[in-house]
């Protein structure tokens, strides 16, 4: 698979289909990989593919430094490819702006990442080229996809509140969660606005609660569950639990899975008379 990936990348750079390939390279330890940006055909040997390729590289589509490199080919797993669909639907990229190098994936991380345990997109649902075997994606039932929430949902309201207070206490406001998120693409984040000051910048109880809840809310009905926020959190806050809970509520109410079917209308920016309105009182 690695050879096929390198060959394809070399071809795309040689015939100038793209100016850069966003891919995975060897990391600083054998248990890590790192993002690499290949601009020369002779450098494609830096590309790799293994179970440590956890990153969602589509986040580099929002960064000015990597955008400057020109049209990219981007290595995506099935989950990452869903981000591209959301970005297209939200008018952040055009289909022709990216060359999608899909990789078929049996799961990443060691131990296996939580996101992979209920994965039903082993083969990306959108790509220009597929590296690896094309498998048949069979959509998992709703309950199975959100089984990870069972334990959390069994907590009482009070227990949930205590759980999150304890978790958010650890937050140091480094904003790794939002900076890594490919769907947190606002040029100026709400935390950076101070007229008025919507969110207290301090890492105290009030500031941490308002930041973490706002971040999660802005991803409701948009998050594709790549779990990058949780992976990068230096203080180990289970951020994806919040995202996943909101994804579940959004899907339940609007029958919408972000980035799954490219023809589906967005849940949050589409009005439908049949939408559930019983929360309006």
């Amino acid at each position, binding site marked *: 698979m690695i050879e096929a990936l390198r060959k394809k990348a070399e071809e795309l750079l040689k015939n100038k289909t793209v100016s850069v390939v966003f891919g995975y390279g060897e990391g*600083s330890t054998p248990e890590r990989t790192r993002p690499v940006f290949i601009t020369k055909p002779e450098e494609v040997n830096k590309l790799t593919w293994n179970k440590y390729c956890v990153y969602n590289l589509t986040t*580099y589509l929002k960064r000015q430094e990597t955008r400057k490199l020109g049209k990219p080919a981007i290595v995506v797993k099935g989950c990452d490819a869903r981000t591209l669909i959301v970005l297209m639907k939200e008018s952040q990229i055009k289909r022709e702006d990216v060359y999608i190098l899909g990789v078929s994936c049996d799961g990443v991380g060691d131990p296996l990442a939580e996101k992979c345990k209920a994965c039903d997109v082993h083969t990306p649902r959108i790509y220009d080229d597929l590296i690896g075997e094309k498998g048949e994606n069979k959509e998992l039932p709703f309950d199975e996809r959100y089984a990870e929430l069972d334990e959390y949902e069994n907590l009482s309201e009070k227990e949930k509140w205590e759980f999150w207070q304890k978790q958010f206490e650890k937050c140091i406001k*480094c904003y790794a969660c939002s900076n890594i998120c490919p769907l947190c693409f606002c040029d100026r984040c709400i935390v950076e606005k101070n007229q008025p000051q919507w969110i207290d910048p301090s890492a105290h109880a009030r500031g941490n609660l308002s930041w973490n809840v706002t971040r999660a809310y802005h991803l409701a009905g948009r998050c594709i569950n790549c779990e990058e926020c949780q992976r990068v959190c230096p203080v180990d806050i289970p951020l994806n639990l919040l995202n996943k809970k909101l994804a579940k509520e959004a899907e339940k109410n609007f029958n919408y899975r972000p980035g799954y079917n490219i023809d589906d209308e967005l849940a949050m920016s589409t009005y439908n008379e049949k939408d559930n309105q019983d929360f309006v009182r």
Partner: protein
Amino acid sequence: MEKSLNKKDFDNFITSLRGKGYKTFAPKKNNNLVVLDEVQGADEISLDHVITNNSIKEFFFPKTENVLSYRMEKNQVQIEEPEGFAVKAVIFGSRPCDAFSLPVMDKVFNWDCSDKFWVQRREAITIVTIACDKCDSYCFCTSVGLAPDAKQGSDVLLTKISSDNYVVETVTEKGESLIKEFESVFSGPSSDSSDRQVATVEKKFEIEKVKPWLDENFVHAVWTDFSLKCIGCGACTFVCPTCHCFDIVDECTMTKGDRVKNWDGCQFKMFTMHTSGHNPRSTQGERWRQRIMHKFKYYVEKFDSILCVGCGRCSRVCPADMNISEMLEIIETEASQSENKE
């Protein structure tokens, strides 16, 4: 006289300290992490980790703190200054790299004005370090002039000499008086004190070559190339024991408010953004260069210290696997190549 401390007496030490009104902090398991946190007894202390997730700096320079509160009444402003922020405490089992960050940071917090929050906490807290008996591939203290059993910055240093015994060395007068105050907890010299169990930390680069190269290479392709993967968050600076930038904000209503000092970091795009909209460090390459320059050039010129203790935390937590010692190895290689050209 040299003393020793048996692991079974750790609990006695912690309890005695607490009995005399000291707060006690030590490495402690918290789910997947080991963090420096308050402990009530030795059963909570973790001893088998490489390094704690959080650095020692938050005990002297917390992530957020009130520097004053104010209230506006008629034509008057009432100002209330915080009190009681410096609490008598012992940090037990911190690492030598963390301990060394304290004298390094003393220089900046006592520079053009003396930061009372830092200074008073420094006086109130005693540091009892445990030398590292293991390390990982991110550690590089030996490359920045330290060692896994370095004493600078500690008041007392414990070094493992057998599976449950530690040799005790006092480093400062403060350490000396602490040992004296709790003399009964400690034992006499140990017969096996020569057999110290100290980690071997590989030397990764020659620090002497770094600054001369930085002096000449403010403009260089490596800054952009190396930082392309950087996502511009503040994880590296916030876990760093020597990064000390902060921001002052007022959190207020119409009539009252708090003036708060918060950690800030040079990797954020907003860090140098001017109100005019101009940003003197508009790209991540420039922001990454600033981080390296500040640690290995500017601070050296101003305070005669490197602003890095080789703990490796920034590299461990980096979301994009940016590795600081790798950056310094690249600089060393570049420096050697330009030497050869000449």
